Structures are given as C-alpha cells and as structure tokens.
C-alpha cells in the first residue's frame, strides 16, 4: 500500500498572553494515494491547525514541539521546523518558519495545495482572478507556459487540420504522438480543453482549434519564451524580469480560462478579468479550487471548503470535489459537518482536543462508531429522521490545562480509573479501524 502522507506524533503549542495552548497533542495519520480522508472535529479540536501544519503554514506564535510530516518522496517536511527544547522565543520561531517557507516553496502550490473556508478572504482583493490563477502556474511551471505559447506560434494551419482529423478518427495516443513528433507538445492540453468542452458544436470546436495555429510572437517575445523553455537562468535585469513575468502570466491567464471552464464556471473569459468582489461566494470558491488544482497536485487539503456557502451552492461544490477524486489527487477534507464528510470521504478521522480518537472507513465510522466521543458526536447531529438528538454534557476541554489522561474522560459516560491517568494510544482494531480508547483492545 502506498502512503502519500504520514503524520506521526505531531505536537504543536500556541503561545499567547493568556498562556500556552496545547493544540496538537500527538496526531497520527496516514493518507493513501487517491483517497479522500475526512477530518472531523468540533472547534478547538485542532483540525484546521493540523491541516495548516501539514502545509507548513505555522502561525507566528506557534511552536512545533515534535513529530513528523512525511510527504511522498520528500521525506519529513518539518524536520527543520521542530523547535529546540527550552523556552519559546518568538524571534527564533520566526526564523524557523522563514526557513520552512523557503524549504517548502517548491512543494506548496505544486504538489500540495490548500483550499480555505472563506473564499472572500482567500483571494487578494486587488488582483484580477486571471493573475491569481496564472501566478501559481508561473511560479511552479513556467516552462509549460512557454511551451504553450511557442507551440501555438509554431503550429501551422495544416498541422491543426491534421490534429482535428486525428481527434475525430483516432485515439488520444495518436494525437500525443503526432504532437510530439511535430514538437508541439505544448498544444496538447489546449486542444483537449477545447475538444472536451461540453455544449459546443463540433464546427465551433474545430474553428477554435484551427485558430490556435500560427499565433504571432515578436522576435523578442520568442527569444524570451525560448529561454524559459530551455530552462536558461534568468538574467538579472529588473525590466527584463518584469517583462518575462508579464509575458508568462499572460499565458497563465489563458490556462486559467481552461481551468475555470473545466470547473464549469460560466463565461470564464470574463471571469479572469474580474476582481474577487465581483464574484459570488460559490464562484469565488471555484476560483480557489482552480488555483489549488492548477498544477495537478498530489495532495489537496480542503479546510471547510463549503461551510460558508448556502446548501444549494454547497451541493454544487461537493459535486465538484467528487469529480476531482477521479482525477487522482488525494484530498484531506476538513469539516465540522459529519454529514458532509460522510458524503465525500473514503475514510474519516475524528479529532478531539488535538488528537485523533478514531479513524476508519466512512461506512464503519458512521454506522458502528466505537469511541465514546464518536458515538456522542453522531448522536448530536440532527438528521431527517425521528431520532432524538443529544448533546454532549460538559464543555470543550480547555487547551491551556488539558485533562489528565484521556482528554475526553471528564465527559465520557464510560469513564474508568485508567482513563484519568493514562492517555490511550491509537490502536488498530481488526484491519482498517483505529481507536484511541481503553474500552477496546488490550487495555493497559
């Protein structure tokens, strides 16, 4: 079994004027390729902090005490982010975070991306949508952009006629081979995006594909793009850098249109020219998702992506998420709403007070919850049945002084003596289910 992401014993603390908060207290988690893992929990459970920490986005006043985040072939992402023992010093923390930022520069946005809850505040209000999408491609894959533009420049109308013929008669493989032979690889996704657009007449598609050919580029533009394609180092002339970026972002905006139209955004050509405040909440969230998907990442962390949306819009976005699953990205879907999680995820992890208390297949978790907290949580969710719902007695634990032993013990109906003294480990029960509770397995 190939594990894409493994989180091991991750511990994190927040330092504030009111004291120190233990937000993550030894999180263990693994994510397989292509799966959607739901992360559930109430406020203060640390689910969002976990998502951010996996991305290496640590707040200024936080300290990673220990643990590993092992991602694909990159190994442990946060080795350098673990603070040395001793008193917390904000200045030292800032230095470590800075190092972490530069270290993850080529992983974030490319292999690992994130979608935040509030789409209004996720986008820069002063920049056009097109730039904000194009940017993420520009920083991680400028070559692709250069190739796209150069291929359009190079292709002749005859080439494109051939392409249309191939599209109509042959398989995809032939098209790829043809394009590669002609050195027009950069055209592949542009052609595909047009050809697969729903609700467009074939005649129109053909025209659109034909019009890709022979786009004019000035000699200078061409030389700049060729330099990018050949991975030549950038000359350090300020104006040149700016020009090069503008050229590539222009191509990035073209790609943004394709991405948006894949996410069924109406009139993507107009949308890329708009500012975030001109779009509705649902549309903005699609833009954010488009940014997250732009470089076909291996992992997408979605932090409450639908919580700020209305139900009917939430339904639209959830449908989108389900479609993403088929594209091969793994997703960590964080939500406080178990019914949403039950719908999109393959497995669900339940968090409480900074630890995972139960993890298993969605069906099992929902139908046969084991951990007393999971049982209680499910019992509190109103469903469209005659079931009586019940709240959980007591308050969410104070992260400043966590209860001893199992953090849930003051609210647990099955509390035993051992629960007050020891913290239960996450143990594996019959195959795919993991529980952290002394009621199960070989209790200590």
């Amino acid at each position, binding site marked *: 079994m190939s594990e894409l992401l493994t989180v091991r014993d991750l511990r994190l603390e927040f330092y*504030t*004027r*009111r004291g120190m908060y233990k937000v993550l207290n030894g999180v263990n988690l693994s994510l397989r390729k292509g799966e959607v893992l739901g992360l559930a929990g109430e406020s203060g459970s640390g689910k969002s902090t976990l998502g951010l920490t996996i991305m290496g986005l640590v707040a200024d*006043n936080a300290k990673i005490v220990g643990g590993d985040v092992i991602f694909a072939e990159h190994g442990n992402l946060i080795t350098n982010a673990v603070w040395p023992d001793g008193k917390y010093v904000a200045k030292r923390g800032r230095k470590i975070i800075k190092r972490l930022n530069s270290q993850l520069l080529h992983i974030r946005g490319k292999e690992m991306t994130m979608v935040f809850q509030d789409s209004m505040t996720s986008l820069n209000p002063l920049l056009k949508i097109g730039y904000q999408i194009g940017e993420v491609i520009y920083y991680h894959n400028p070559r692709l952009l250069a190739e796209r533009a150069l291929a359009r420049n190079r292709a002749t109308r005859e080439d494109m006629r051939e392409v249309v013929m191939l599209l109509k008669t042959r398989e995809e493989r032939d098209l790829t081979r043809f394009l590669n032979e002609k050195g027009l690889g950069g055209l592949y996704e542009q052609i595909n995006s047009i050809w697969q657009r729903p609700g467009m007449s074939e005649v129109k598609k053909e025209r659109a594909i034909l019009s890709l050919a022979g786009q004019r580029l000035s000699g200078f533009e061409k030389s700049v793009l060729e330099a990018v394609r050949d991975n030549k180092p950038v000359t350090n002339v300020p104006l040149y850098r700016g020009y090069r970026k503008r050229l590539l972002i222009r191509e990035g905006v073209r790609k943004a249109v394709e991405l948006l139209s894949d996410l069924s955004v109406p009139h993507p050509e107009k949308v890329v020219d708009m500012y975030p405040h001109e779009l509705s909440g649902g549309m903005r969230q699609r833009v954010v998702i488009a940014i997250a998907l732009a470089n076909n990442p291996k992992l997408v962390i979605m932090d409450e992506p639908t919580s700020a949306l209305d139900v009917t819009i939430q339904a639209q976005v959830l449908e989108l998420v389900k479609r993403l699953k088929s594209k091969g990205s793994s997703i960590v879907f964080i939500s406080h709403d178990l019914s949403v999680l039950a719908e999109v995820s393959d497995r669900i992890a339940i968090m409480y007070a900074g630890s995972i208390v139960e993890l298993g297949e969605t069906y099992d978790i929902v139908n046969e919850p084991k951990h007393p907290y999971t049982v209680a949580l499910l019992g509190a969710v109103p469903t469209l049945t005659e079931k009586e719902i019940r709240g959980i007695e007591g308050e969410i634990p104070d992260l400043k002084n966590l209860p001893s032993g199992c953090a849930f013990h003051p609210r647990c109906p099955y509390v035993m003596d051992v629960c007050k003294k020891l913290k239960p480990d996450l143990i594996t029960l019959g195959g795919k289910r993991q529980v952290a509770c002394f009621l199960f397995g070989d209790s200590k």
Partner: protein
Amino acid sequence: METKRESELRLSFKVLFRNKSALVGTVLVLLYFIDAFVMQVYPKLFGITNPNSLVENFASPLPLPPSVLHPLGTTAYGIDLWSSILKAIRFDLAYTLAVVLSGAVIGVILGVISGFVGGALDEFLMRITDIVFSIPYLVLALAVGFVIGRTYTSMIFALALVWWPIYARYGRALTLSIKTLPYVDSARLYGMNGLKILFKHVVPNVLPPVFVQVSVDLGVIMPIFSTLSFIGFIPNANLPELGYLTTLGLNYLQSAPWAVIFPGAIITLFSLAANLMGEGLRDVFDPRRRSE
C-alpha cells in the same frame, strides 16, 4: 471553578505592564503630572517660589552651560533652565489638557449623537467636519487665533476648534459600529428608549477607545502648542512655557545648544511617553489584543 478567575483589573495591569515601553511611557507621563501637581500645590518642595513667571538675571544675560548652580544651564536673559522647565511643565500640561479634553468632550458628544441619530443631522455634521478638515490645522488655528486675539487662552480655543472634528468622526464611527450590534437590538426589542440605550449601551463602549485617543493626543498637542509659540503666535508674555523657552535659546543655537536641547527634549519626551502609554492602553482596552 469559581476561584480560577482572574480579576479584570489585574489582567489589565498585567497586559499594560507586560509591554515594557508602555510601562516606561506611563511612568514618565505620571512624573510630568506629579511635577505639575507639586507646582500647583506646593512649589517650595522643589525650591521654587514664583511658579508663574520666569526669573531673568540681567547680570549674566548670555546662556551659561550646566553647572552646580544651574543643573541644566541657563538660557537667554540668564534664565535658569532647570527651575523654568519645572514651572513650564505645569503650564504646558494644563494647556494641552484643556485643548484635548475640550476637543474630546465636544467632539465625542457631537459624534455620538450624530452617529446615533443619523439622517440629516449626521450628514450636516460630517460636512462641517469635512470643511474644518479642508484647512491645514495649523493654518486654521493661526487664523482663528489672529481674529480672536493672540493670547494663550485664544490659542487653547483655536486648537480645540481645530481638534474637535477628529473626535467627532471617531466617536461617530464607533457609535455606528455599536449601534447595529445585537445587544442594542435586544434592548430596543423590549422597548428601551433611545436615550437610555445611548447611555447604557453605546457610551460605555465608545469611551475606552476614545480614552486611548486622548492619551495619544496629549502627545500630539504639546508639540503643536510649542510650534505656535515658536512662530510668534503669542507676544512675549514672560510665562514659563516650553515652546517659549525653546525659542529663547534659538538665537544661541550654535554657541549654547543646551538652551534648545533641554526644553526641546522635555517636549519630545512627553510626546513620546504619551504615545507609548497610548499604545499600551490600546492593548488593554482591545479584548482581541488582550488575549493574544
């Protein structure tokens, strides 16, 4: 459970004192106030007999450097700087307080009322503040002072006239944000009348941030005050006033820099201290910053 509460006051002090520079600022501002208090009540404590005027010494009219007799040296006309500064602090503090407090009281009252009542009154008041803001405050203060006569009293009046719109806008903005909060709605729901809502729910929540602004503005007004004095707004009145003291030394800038440095530093230091204190108070009053 009941015992674990931290008292509000203690937490406030904790927040204020955690911020070292705010602590320093507060202590300095307090020192200025103590000096003013002593000068008002019992100036002999500092060995001063005539706190209301400067003592000239025409025997040695040129500035002398600091010595045992004159710890900070003397300035033009042989005036001893140390004792004059001790005297002047009271005057400057009083003038500054008079300007800031009258500006704040008038401004906040008008601002809160206009924000709370809204409509045409609000529109009218905001246009008036626009107009006052359309003239650089120093220039407006000059013009007003010119018309009503160039004295210290008219200077206070002129500056208060220039300053109230700042508070009016601030008070209005605060009122507008509080007015729509659910707890005000709730009070309206069970029929509390507007005036009572204003005093019970709006004003108590407007005042703390205004208080912060007042403490910061103390530090803004004093330099402006001395600037007006510097450009000759007030004909020589022989009053112990920091701006005037500084101006006296200017003619000897090259030969006796202390005559400018000391009174200037006293003004700057107060302004600095008031700013630092204001920043600390802001943390104390803002629940969001408080919990950080």
